Every structure is written in structure tokens, then in C-alpha cells.
């Protein structure tokens, strides 16, 4: 389940997206400015936007600005662009498109959204750890990661698997994973570090999205996992190192190892 931010002024388009979104949660914006604010302040995984949502604004240029501010948040454009506009939005950074002729097809819209979610952190984690931790452990990590945006806590994670908290703790121990509390702490930090790679987000906004009371609290969480401070960590290498540290704490085997 993921959060989708959408800017679709047309009621029929909204209805089509709602029908196709399934278990994903939709948050509506009423302007490009509102859309940017939503992505900055909420754990948005995908953005869907009508290119002509604001008639006097150049849709392709808005896509470009969005992609600059939030390069890791995929943007799906919606509409029926002519050849030149299609060229420009592709160049500006749109990751996919729902054509007007396909808006009645919920299956196709769902596929576009699912494909856009392929680069989200839960999937990145899954790829990074597959074959390195056992399948049950990977499932636990993935499920927890998918619900970080909901602010999941240990009791809810245990309930998801129909375990008591103590059973979940024992399972984690058997699977050589960190304790459930530390697992969620790690996942929040990884989400936060990834979001911080987007220049449109601040430490304060990321901390707030992850349920921390302040930026300082988020900084303490970082210190408790990988050490250091968030601002110097705003680069892809630092994120990759954090990911590897997490894998190490999950007792993942070395890459290419058995």
C-alpha cells in the first residue's frame, strides 16, 4: 500500500484513478503548488497529474520542476498530449503516462501505478536483500517497509502476521534480524535518508512524515543506527552505505555469497 498524490481537476479522471488505485491511498491536490506541498509533507510514493490541470501553465515545465525537486518520486502524467508535448514531458522527467483513451481501463491504470512503484524503497530493499536473508525474514522486512508510511508500530506489525509481540520478537531472533523495534527504527531512517536525497524535502518535513516530533528526534534516530548527522548524508553513496549497514545488522550474507 502506498500514498499517491494526484492533481486531476476532472471528476471522471478522479473517479477512474480511484477505481484503479485499489489498496493505495489517494491524496488530492488542487494545484501544482499544492501537489509539491503534498509530496514535501506526506510520504508520497507516486504522483499522478493532468498536464493541463492549470490551463495557463506549461505542463511540461511543471513536470521538469517537479522532477528536479523530487527526482526519486515518479510522476505519471495523465491526458492526451500531442507529439511535441509528449516529447517534452518525457524529456522533462515523467516516468509514465495514462492516455485519455485508456482511462476507462482500470487494469491498465493499475499496471502503470504498480510499475511506477518499482523504484520505491520497499522494492529497493527487497532487491538488495533477496537471496541474502531468508525468505521469511525478507517478507517481514518488506511488509514492515511497505507500512512505514502509515506510521506502523511493533504491535501492529505483530498483528499483521497474527503473532503476539513476544512471538514476533522470537521470530526475529530466529531469523537473525534486529528486534522488531530496531527493525522499524532502521526502516524509518532508511526512508528518511532516501527522501533527503530529494532537494525539495527538508529534515524537518521528513522527520514529521516519519512520526518524529522534531528534526532533532530524527537526527537522534540516525545517530542510533548509522551515526553521524543527516545533512552530510544527503548523497546517494551515504544512502547505499546505510542500506549495507542495515543488511549487515540483518546478518545478510555478503553479495554473491551463499
Amino acid at each position, binding site marked *: 500500500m502506498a500514498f499517491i498524490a494526484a492533481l486531476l481537476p476532472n471528476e471522471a479522471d478522479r473517479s477512474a484513478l480511484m477505481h484503479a488505485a485499489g489498496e493505495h491511498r489517494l491524496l488530492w491536490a488542487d494545484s501544482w503548488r499544492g501537489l509539491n506541498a503534498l509530496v514535501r509533507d506526506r510520504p508520497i510514493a507516486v504522483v499522478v497529474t493532468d498536464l493541463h490541470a492549470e490551463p495557463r501553465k*506549461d505542463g*511540461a*515545465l511543471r513536470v*521538469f520542476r517537479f522532477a528536479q525537486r523530487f527526482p526519486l518520486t515518479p510522476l505519471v502524467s495523465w491526458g492526451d498530449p*500531442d*507529439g*511535441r508535448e*509528449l*516529447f*517534452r*514531458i*518525457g*524529456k*522533462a*522527467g*515523467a*516516468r*509514465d*503516462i495514462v*492516455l485519455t*483513451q*485508456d482511462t*476507462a*481501463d482500470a*487494469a*491498465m491504470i493499475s*499496471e502503470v501505478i504498480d*510499475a511506477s512503484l518499482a523504484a520505491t524503497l520497499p522494492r529497493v530493499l527487497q532487491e538488495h536483500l533477496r537471496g541474502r536473508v531468508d525468505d521469511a525474514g525478507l517478507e517481514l522486512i518488506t511488509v514492515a517497509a511497505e507500512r512505514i508510511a502509515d506510521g506502523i508500530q511493533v504491535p501492529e506489525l505483530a498483528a499483521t502476521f497474527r503473532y503476539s509481540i513476544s512471538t514476533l520478537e522470537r521470530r526475529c531472533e530466529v531469523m537473525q534480524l534486529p528486534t522488531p523495534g530496531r527493525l522499524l527504527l532502521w526502516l524509518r531512517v532508511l526512508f528518511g535518508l532516501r527522501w533527503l536525497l530529494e532537494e525539495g524535502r527538508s529534515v524537518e518535513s521528513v522527520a514529521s512524515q516519519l512520526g518524529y516530533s522534531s528534526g532533532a528526534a530524527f537526527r537522534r534516530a540516525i545517530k542510533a543506527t548509522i551515526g553521524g548527522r543527516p545533512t552530510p548524508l544527503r548523497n546517494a553513496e551515504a544512502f547505499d552505505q546505510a542500506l549495507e549497514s542495515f543488511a549487515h545488522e540483518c546478518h545478510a550474507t555478503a553479495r554473491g555469497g551463499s
Partner: protein
Amino acid sequence: MARYDRIAALPLPERSHAIPGWCVMRELSGRERDTELANRVRLYFLVLRPVRRLVERGFAVPPDSHDRQVAAMRAALDAMPTTTPGLARLRSFLSAVSTRAPERVALATLDVATMAEARSHYEAASEFALTALAAAAHANPGVEARASTVLARLQRKTGHWSDAERWSTRAVDLAAPPSFRAAWAHAVTELATLYHVRSAQSEAVSLLGRVRKRVAEWKDELLLADGAEALAATALAAGHTEVAVHEGWFALHRINDTERRRRLLLSVADGLRTLRLFAGADACYSALAQTAVGPAERAAPLTRAAVSAAEAGDLASFRERHDRSMHEVLELQDGHRAGFLLELGRACVLTGDGERGLAHASATVRLAEMHGDPCLQAHAQELCAVASAHHDGAILAGRHQPPAPADDTRELAAEIAAGAQRVVTPSRR
């Protein structure tokens, strides 16, 4: 900086980061205000989408949804003017896509790649070929080899020779099992063409010889014909004209499809013309023109026959054939006419009629511009320059001086002259 320029200045996105299938739009790079081209590449993008979807989902798409998507595209094609170039091929492509059969989808996608390639839309052709390759991974290595060969050819044409060699080598490896002989012949002959273009003539000849030997060993008549046809086409492109004529004529007797036979006979005739064996070439052109249905089929042999007369220096025949050819060419739609006008223009310049050559070349420039064909436009502009400088054709004529053909090729030319009509007469088969 103008708002528009903010995006124009951006580099093109990597294929892996772009909207699926968007890379066909790369064709617009630097020409994004060309509305005609923009519409054409948008059409490519739209028709490719169902295939990209099949490929990305391992051909496991909901049938209803897939059918709706294809039907929407069919409706879009139906709404286009009937003069839209390639409309019939796109319709047949959609029919193949609607089957969701990986091999049919891959081959049909390759066909559109070839169509885009013929119009010098190499970016679009590459995207179709890459998609065909991905679809072929669900079919069999033979189709993968064919797609790899097309990619090799596109890379060669765009000057990316190391990539072309990589694709060719891959195609040869994929087509190694005996059941993919035809694909193997295509792949090796493409590799030979690459060597030819890179001026590695000894390697090219050696490879072509290898193909020829292998093709001769094959007992299966259809595969034999496929291999020989591939060898003929590549040998002609690589400048091994005599090999092309021999193999082409050999293949002609083993191919059942009339359209393929006509295409092959035309290329055999072109080979004979290049070797200055004009009688044989003219017999082929004449047979093709007589059995043609409609101006589109007649225009090619009549135009080439006129060129043949010009190259032979037979002015009287040239004038008569030129006029006959023009009669048919003027019946064609604009988009199809340009290539013929260019050929006739060159022939006029060859015969010293610079004025008429210039008129044809200028018309070609206009049509090529209108239909977004930069390659044809460049050739036509080159001819304009030659024709307007009042050259008497010496420059063009200087390009057509091949070495004298061997005796067995001369004998074959006589045999072809006698048998050309038989080969293209439908009642024979």
C-alpha cells in the same frame, strides 16, 4: 532564457528512466517544432504501447484490457487520412499484436522497425527493434537473432560500429542451432556488411564465402532460399554484386511468395545494372512492369529501366522510359513519389539534362521536407547542387564504373534475360 528553452536544453533521458516506449520520440530531438514528424512519431509511440505492456508483463495481460487497448489504436488508425504512410502495415502490426503470440508480436514489431528504418527514423526503429528483442525472449532464439541483426544494422547505419559488431556477434551466436539457419545467414551477412563498411574487405569476403558454402550444404529448399535471399541482399549492399546476382537468381526459383519474388527480381536487376549488364537488367524491369498491378508496383521497375537506359547512354530509350515512368510516378501519393523523382533526377543529370534533373531534385527536396525524410532530403539537395552547377553528369557517371563481370556472370545475365518473365508470372506457381 525562454521557458521553452529550459526543456530544449535538457539531455535526452536514458531508456531505463524514460516513459516506456518513449524513445521513439527521440526522433524529434532538435526538430520538435516539426508538426508532421511529431505526429508520426506519436503514432509510433501509441502503436508500440500495447507491445511494451506485453513485454513488461511477460505477455500475461488481462485479455479484455489488451483487446480494448488494441481496439482503441485501431480506431485511432481508422481516423487517420488514408494517405498516411505505412497505414496498412501498422494495421497488420496491430492484428499480430492482438494475438498476444510472442513470436508473431516480435516479428510484427520488427516489421515496423524495418518500416521506420526505411524512412531513416533510426531512433524509432531502434526502439521497435529493442522491444521486438524483448518480445522475442518469450518466443525463440531464432527471432531474437533476427531482432539482434536488425539492431546491428541500425547501429551500423548510425555509425556505432562497435555496438553493431556486438549485436551481430550476438545474433550469430543465438542463431547457431541448425533450426535457425535463415537467421544465421542474415546475421553473418550483416556482420560481413559491417566489415565491408569498415573497409575490412577480406574479412567481409571470407564471411560471405562461409555463408555461401553453408547455404549450399542445406537440403531444405525453403531455408536454402531464405539463406540465399539474405546473402543476395547483403552482398548487393556490401558491393559484392556478382555474388548478389548469382544468389538472388538461385533463391528466386525457390521462393513461393509472389511479392518476395518481385522484390528479389528487382534487386537482381539492380545488380545486373550495376554490373552494366543492361540487357539482363532491362528484361527483368520489363517483366516486372508488365506483371505489376497498379502504379505503385509499376513505378519502381519503370523508373529503374529509365535509369538503366541513362547509364547505358541510350538517350532515345531514356526519354521514352522517363516519360512512361513519370506517368506512373505522378499517380502516386506525395510520400511515395519522392524517391522515384530523385532516381529520375539523377538519370536526367547523367544524360546531361541538368534542367530537368534540377526540377526533379527540387521537387524531391520539397516532398522530403514535407514528409520528414532528412536522408532523402540530403541526397536531393546534393543532386540539386550538381544539377544547378550544369554538370553534364560526369560526376555521377564516375560513380558507376565497376570492374568487368566474370564470364559465368555474363552467361547468367543471358539466362536471367530469358527467364525473368517466367519468374514473376503468377500462373506459373
